[in-house]
């Protein structure tokens, strides 16, 4: 495994909170925002020598360790919240701090999340100047009525304007986020919307089935005892949408490379692929998670997170790492490499998980070929049931 790392920055600022969102985010004052960015930059600098661990190539040790600042940065991802509402000077100072502390170069993937309605030509050219080379736009739905239900601030026309502006600013790697399975949605109406989005020829699409998270306004309406739960598409409709999405996007040249992600060849998100293949990452900011190769921690979900205890701090055993290799790796349609497993853990995958592998091969939820194990199409539908057997 190549020694490299990923960087994640969390910007928890939004014009307003959406009805389905359970991320740490919200509307805050300018002063709060400024204090937050001061803290964030201090954190970026303070953690540059964090030791990161990689399975050792030699037999004498199980891990090689490197300080984060010594490793090439594979990708940078600025997520939120709505990073695109953050004033450019704050962003500039933050990216400068990043570049000073870590080895970011033009080959690093550099993504910023943006919401339609917050993108202006001047912002977009500032992003280009900062080295941002990938844009992830949260459209969620091309249907204005659905956008209203979700509590989004934009409509489809606003999105179109943002998208065109981004193209004009020179962005040639744009991802669009969509949510399927919204209340009142039918497979045919979703498919119509999807075709509209496809006509814009994005390089990348993320299509998530709506997850009703606790502690959101949606949970009260659509949760297990929600008054409007029946408006959600049933399991049959949900799967129909999922399978139709895969087929339509495939026809349009975007292949499914992960449960919910689709890309033109070569445009798969490097950053997210890193999460699923065990690349270490440092997450900066409130509620941001980091993975050192042998442990995972998560900052407190608060603007003043730096003065608080981390929300999670977990040392991972070899068994944990093996399980994560499987449950994250199986999310990708390419599957997990048996050779890679063996080189990382010095144990054959089929010995470590013999019962689970043989059960799921027999059930037809897993398939093996070319040294890879992957979920079958049915396996993708019931991925949790498969993954739980690898814990």
């Amino acid at each position: 495994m190549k020694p490299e790392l990923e960087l994640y920055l969390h910007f928890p600022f939004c014009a307003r909170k959406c009805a389905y969102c359970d991320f740490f985010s919200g509307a805050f004052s300018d002063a709060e925002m400024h204090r937050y960015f001061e803290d964030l930059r201090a954190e970026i600098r303070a953690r540059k020598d964090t030791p990161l661990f990689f399975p050792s190539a030699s037999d004498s040790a199980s891990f090689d360790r490197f300080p984060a600042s010594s490793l090439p940065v594979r990708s940078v991802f600025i997520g939120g919240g709505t990073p695109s509402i953050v004033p450019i000077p704050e962003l500039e100072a933050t990216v400068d701090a990043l570049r000073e502390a870590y080895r970011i170069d033009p080959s690093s993937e550099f993504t910023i999340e943006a919401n339609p309605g917050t993108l202006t030509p001047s912002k977009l050219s500032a992003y280009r100047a900062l080295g941002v080379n990938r844009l992830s736009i949260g459209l969620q739905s091309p249907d204005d009525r659905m956008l209203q239900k979700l509590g989004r601030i934009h409509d489809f026309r606003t999105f179109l304007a943002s998208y065109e502006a981004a193209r004009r600013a020179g962005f040639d790697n744009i991802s669009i986020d969509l949510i399927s399975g919204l209340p009142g949605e039918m497979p045919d109406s979703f498919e119509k919307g999807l075709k509209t989005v496809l006509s814009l020829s994005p390089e990348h699409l993320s299509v998530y089935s709506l997850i009703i998270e606790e502690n959101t306004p949606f949970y009260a309406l659509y949760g297990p005892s929600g008054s409007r739960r029946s408006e959600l598409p049933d399991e049959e409709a949900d799967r129909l949408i999922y399978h139709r999405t895969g087929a339509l996007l495939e026809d349009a040249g975007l292949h499914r490379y992960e449960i919910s992600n689709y890309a033109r060849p070569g445009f798969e998100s490097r950053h997210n692929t890193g999460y699923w293949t065990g690349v270490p990452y440092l997450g900066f900011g409130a509620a941001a998670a980091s993975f050192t190769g042998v442990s995972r921690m998560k900052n407190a979900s608060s603007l003043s997170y730096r003065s608080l205890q981390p929300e999670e701090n977990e040392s991972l055993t070899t068994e944990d790492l093996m399980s994560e290799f499987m449950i994250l790796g199986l999310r990708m349609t390419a599957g997990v490499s048996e050779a890679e497993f063996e080189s990382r853990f010095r144990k054959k995958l089929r010995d470590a998980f013999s019962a689970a592998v043989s059960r799921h091969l027999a059930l037809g939820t897993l398939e093996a070929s070319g040294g890879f194990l992957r979920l079958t199409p049915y396996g993708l539908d019931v991925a949790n049931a498969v993954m739980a057997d690898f814990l």
Partner: protein
Amino acid sequence: MFAGPFVPPLTSMEKQLFMTHSDMTKIRNFCIIAHIDHGKSTLADRIIEMTGLLTAREMQSQVLDNMDLERERGITIKAQAVRTVYRAKDGNEYIFNLIDTPGHVDFNYEVSRSLAACDGAILVVDAAQGIEAQTLANVYLAIDHDLEVFPVINKIDLPSAEPEKVAQEIEDVIGIEAMDAPRISAKTGENVEDVLEAIVERIPAPTGDPEAPLQALIFDSLYDSYKGVIVFFRVKNGTVKPGMRIRMMATGAEADVVETGYFGAGQFIPCESLSAGEVGYLTASIKNVQDTRVGDTVTGAKNPAAEALPGYKKVLPMVYCGMYPADGAHYQDLRDALEKLKLNDASLFYEPETSLALGFGFRCGFLGLLHLEIIEERLEREYDLDLVTTAPSVIYHVHKMNGEMIELTNPSNLPDPSEIDYMEEPFVSAEIIVTSEFIGSIMDLCQDRRGVYQSIEYIEAGRAILKYDLPLNEIIYDFYDALKSRSRGYASFDYELKGYVKSELVKLDILVNHEEVDALSFIVYAGNAYERGRRMCEKLKDEIPRQLFEIPIQAAIGSKIIARETVKAMRKDVLAKCYGGDITRKKKLLEKQKEGKKRMRMVGNVEIPQKAFMSVLKLDEN
């Protein structure tokens, strides 16, 4: 626990209170009869409080109901007792021994022994609800035991209280004088004083000869790890004191008395001796409650009584089921827990058994379904065990071709049909007291349950005793519930074992994904097999979660399939999103899912939730 090994030193006041009272005319032994929630425990609390035995600090609400379980269910499982001292308006001090009784048909025998230890009973009736079914059986039982019963009308503080109407009802239905019954609120304490005076005036003092050979009636016993078995009894004749060698007349067990004493509220208070008319306990380094059975007579080994007190019978389990630890690793824990429970429960039976589906466990015998449920809950709560219980079964007599007879308690052990000549099942004689408007629907119910009509007898204009012979098998599941729902609660029910009757019985097997699940097999009347099999399959279909493949569920008699349902394959179970910040949380979700699987039993390739094994017990009536 009621039984603490440590007895705090007595204050001089308490010593005075507990000095041996040889004057039998100043003793009152009584119990309280009430329908559930009519205020029995509250009244007991007030009596204890107002007789000044306990300080406010010692006063725990509902002193008599010790076990958490009893408090929650609002029922009294084990008979217990408390002794208080009351200074009456006539200026004398009276000793009150209040004996608490269980209140369910499973424990009828225990109730009858508790009543036999009393001279009178207070009948508590809710001023808003009036007489209800449960009360009647116990009132009649009390009257059968020649107890003086006087009524008390409780809850007069309720806005809906109608004490005059209820008094009239008591006179009409039970036929005891009720017009001057104390109207009280046990909750507020209002007029409870009148009850105390009525106890003195209306309940007769005990009779008996303190000099005669000892005859003491055991109405309960419990095992204490420090003192050994503590025997609860009422002395009918003679005197018992420490050092004396005693014999249990039915079991023949002998022991030397170590301690005698009274029941303080929440503690045992030793005394020098107990004589005719008194209620108390003794310890004698007895290791096993099997030796001190409820209803047995304690006598002196040296100078034994000529005969035992009447009414003793050895209670035998009527209902059996398999109990298995949910996690096979806890088999030894289950064994230890059963052993401990048995120390306190002479009617509990268990022996090891194994099941293909459930692994190692025990076949356990109980007095009835409530007894079963109580033991199950105690195992789960007090011993923190997760259990899987199989369908309860009665004891069948299997007569084989070779003349041998097997007492079958586990359906899986039924011999091959070719070896069976015929089978018999236990029948009970049941008495159902019901108001006339419900007679029709109750007769339908008995008919549905293969009842054989015996007689109907009107006890007064609106009420009748309906007598049926019923297969025990048909009443152990949900008969009591069905009876109550069909009579809106106004039916009381009592039964006793009548004997074995030849019957057309078959073993119904359940196949899940074509594999027989031994723990789900049961014996059923041939005529009901199809219906039961169909309902079992329907129920299991709801209980078995969808899995990664289609699962047929079949009911079969021998090789013949009589019913089938299908659990369809799972359609969707996937987390749409999983990025850096989500991994820990998503992993926890998967771990929870995996934990859920641990509570499943693997039968072949199928995961069956543990509760599925029990849900089949509760097949809806319709």
